[in-house]
């Protein structure tokens, strides 16, 4: 009896030693393969919000369906209910799977509605699996699409700030090794292989309300005048922050499609010859170099001047004008006569300090620097045309930046899209000169000016109209124009600068003062109200209010 017991024990111990010592590696490996799993720790993409924290781009988990073709094809009769849920044709799916029968992983449909995926998992089909993915949504849609851009199906930024700040927003997924039990629950974390870095949020300087307002008005203007495209940019004068930036045509970032023409953020990527809106820069150079003062008289009759065999014309014969009136009336002859007294280098230097010919440095993908040729290659005619905005090109954002210099006492601030950007003010011109030009620009919206339609009730506005011929392959086109208006207000303490550019209006009206100025007025009127900016004549308004007791 005892012998049998001992024998059994010996056998048992021998087996135990065999398993524990001799085959331990093999068995342990097999065992671990059955319950050790590497699990990916996903990282969500950061939220992009406007300056007030309103979400503009948010990622949310959705399910995607993938199949193991071999497993599912064994039960091909079950494809039908699956196809019905996916809204696809069962035969199509089967054909697709047969073609890839030797593969182990085929996406069936990505980014489905949660209610659909719940029904699919309820079907409990063999070889059909759900994979959690993130999908990005843009609640403001086409209104913010150019600034924000969009991500592709793998959640990688493709355009706009989604592209520029991709790594900041994306974070990086981590992974860990866990032990799973029979039910697939993770029962023990063995090792953290890589920590997950969640994507970080991005807060923009854009104001969503202003953005919508600008977009709505731009869209209706572009439609009304049958224009090819258009842009509006609103900057905060004191900080250089971009408060609104919209373009037409636009697109829906939730379903971008492939129309790349409408995806460009024209306000940053597209340059145009600004025409008359450049004149204040030339005048600033004239004042700066002591060629003239605002009251210096310039003879503009007979309304044209011949430079190197080329005739520069005015709209009509304005006769004797002072420098202020040259801007008020937008006289090409006047600004030409003044600018030609400058050395090319002096004029180039002023333009350069206003930021022309150089990208603004916002880091926005595809940003254009515009064209300002080196002054050593300027001919006399070129110097004249550059004074009234031909032979030089700029983006709408560059124009906004330049006018902000005039509005901000001569200080240039690099435009910023992101809150907390580091853009210290750089002194571009003397504050005395800047204020002089600003005062002169106020006459443009006065009764004698070209920009009366840019007026904003209760606010004083300074600005400049522009109407330029579009350059084409065969020289300047006769009947194709770019209408623009650039201005700022309230003039007594400038807060906002706004650029309006309407490209190729096809209606009867094409002057900047008729097409762009009314849009400027509507955007600025709304912006002043939304941002609670006090009117210039606020004390006077209060006094007059006191005179009407019980007024409406």
């Amino acid at each position, binding site marked *: 009896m005892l012998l049998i017991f001992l024998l059994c024990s010996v056998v048992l111990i021998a087996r135990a030693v065999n398993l524990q010592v001799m085959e331990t590696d093999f068995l342990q490996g097999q065992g671990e393969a059955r319950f050790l799993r590497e699990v990916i720790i996903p990282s969500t993409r950061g939220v992009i919000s406007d300056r007030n924290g309103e979400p503009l781009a*948010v990622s*949310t*988990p959705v399910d995607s369906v993938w199949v193991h073709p071999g497993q599912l094809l064994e039960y091909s009769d079950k494809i039908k209910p699956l196809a019905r849920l996916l809204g696809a044709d069962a035969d199509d799916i089967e054909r697709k799977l047969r073609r890839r029968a030797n593969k182990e992983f085929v996406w069936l449909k990505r980014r489905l509605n949660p209610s659909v995926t719940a029904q699919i998992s309820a079907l409990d089909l063999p070889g059909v699996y759900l994979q959690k993915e993130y999908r990005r949504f843009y*609640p403001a849609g086409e209104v913010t699409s150019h600034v924000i851009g969009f991500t592709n199906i793998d959640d990688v930024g493709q355009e706009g700030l989604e592209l520029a700040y991709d790594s900041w927003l994306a974070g990086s997924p981590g992974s860990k090794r866990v032990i799973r039990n029979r039910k697939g*629950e*993770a029962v023990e974390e063995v090792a953290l292989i890589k920590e997950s870095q969640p994507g970080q949020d991005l807060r923009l300087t854009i104001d969503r309300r202003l953005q919508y307002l600008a977009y709505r008005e731009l869209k209706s203007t572009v439609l009304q005048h049958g224009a090819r495209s258009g842009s509006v940019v609103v900057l905060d004068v004191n900080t250089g922050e971009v408060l609104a930036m919209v373009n037409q045509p636009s697109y829906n970032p939730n379903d971008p499609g492939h129309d790349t023409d409408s995806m460009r953020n024209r306000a940053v990527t597209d340059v145009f010859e600004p025409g008359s809106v450049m004149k204040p820069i030339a005048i600033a150079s004239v004042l700066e170099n002591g060629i003239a003062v605002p009251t210096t008289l310039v003879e503009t009759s007979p309304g044209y001047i011949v430079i190197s065999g080329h005739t520069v014309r005015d709209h009509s014969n304005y006769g004797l004008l002072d420098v202020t009136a040259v801007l008020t009336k937008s006289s090409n002859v006047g600004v030409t006569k003044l600018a030609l007294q400058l050395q090319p280098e002096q004029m180039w230097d002023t333009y350069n300090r206003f930021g022309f010919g150089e990208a603004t440095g916002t880091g926005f993908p595809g940003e254009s620097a515009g064209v300002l040729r080196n002054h050593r290659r300027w001919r006399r005619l070129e110097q004249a045309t550059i004074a009234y905005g031909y032979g030089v090109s700029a983006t709408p954002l560059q124009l906004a930046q330049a006018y902000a210099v005039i509005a901000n006492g001569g200080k240039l601030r690099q435009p910023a899209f992101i809150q907390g950007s580091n853009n210290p003010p750089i002194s571009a011109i003397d504050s005395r000169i800047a204020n002089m030009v600003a005062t002169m620009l106020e006459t443009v919206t006065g009764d004698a000016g070209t920009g009366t339609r840019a007026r904003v009730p209760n606010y004083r506005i300074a600005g400049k109209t522009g109407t330029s011929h579009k350059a084409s392959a065969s020289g300047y086109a006769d009947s194709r124009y770019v209408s623009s208006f650039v201005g700022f207000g309230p003039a007594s303490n400038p807060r906002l600068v706004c650029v309006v550019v309407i490209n190729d209006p096809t209606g009867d009206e094409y002057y900047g003062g008729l097409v762009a100025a009314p849009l400027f007025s509507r955007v600025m009127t709304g912006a002043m109200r939304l941002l609670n900016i006090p009117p210039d004549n606020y004390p006077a308004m209060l006094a007059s209010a006191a005179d*009407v007791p019980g007024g409406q």
Partner: protein
Amino acid sequence: MKLQILILIIVLLANIGSALGVVYSRHESRLLAVELSALESQQDEGLAEWSRLQIEQGWLADASQIEKKARGVLHMQQPDKTQILVIRP
């Protein structure tokens, strides 16, 4: 001799006790890990819900929607210059 046997028994008992303790704490830690992963997925669920609500709010509070309702349903309009009176700064 007696003392040695006593020590041996104590050590054996302590050994068995600590073995049981290890088993118990191991089991406990696995239960807690299950609970942790359940809570983590609950957190994920909550975050997902939050992102969905943010998007929903973004859509419903869209300026164009609000404007449509204000003008169309509530017949509101923007006051013009003559209807505005500044009472106090």
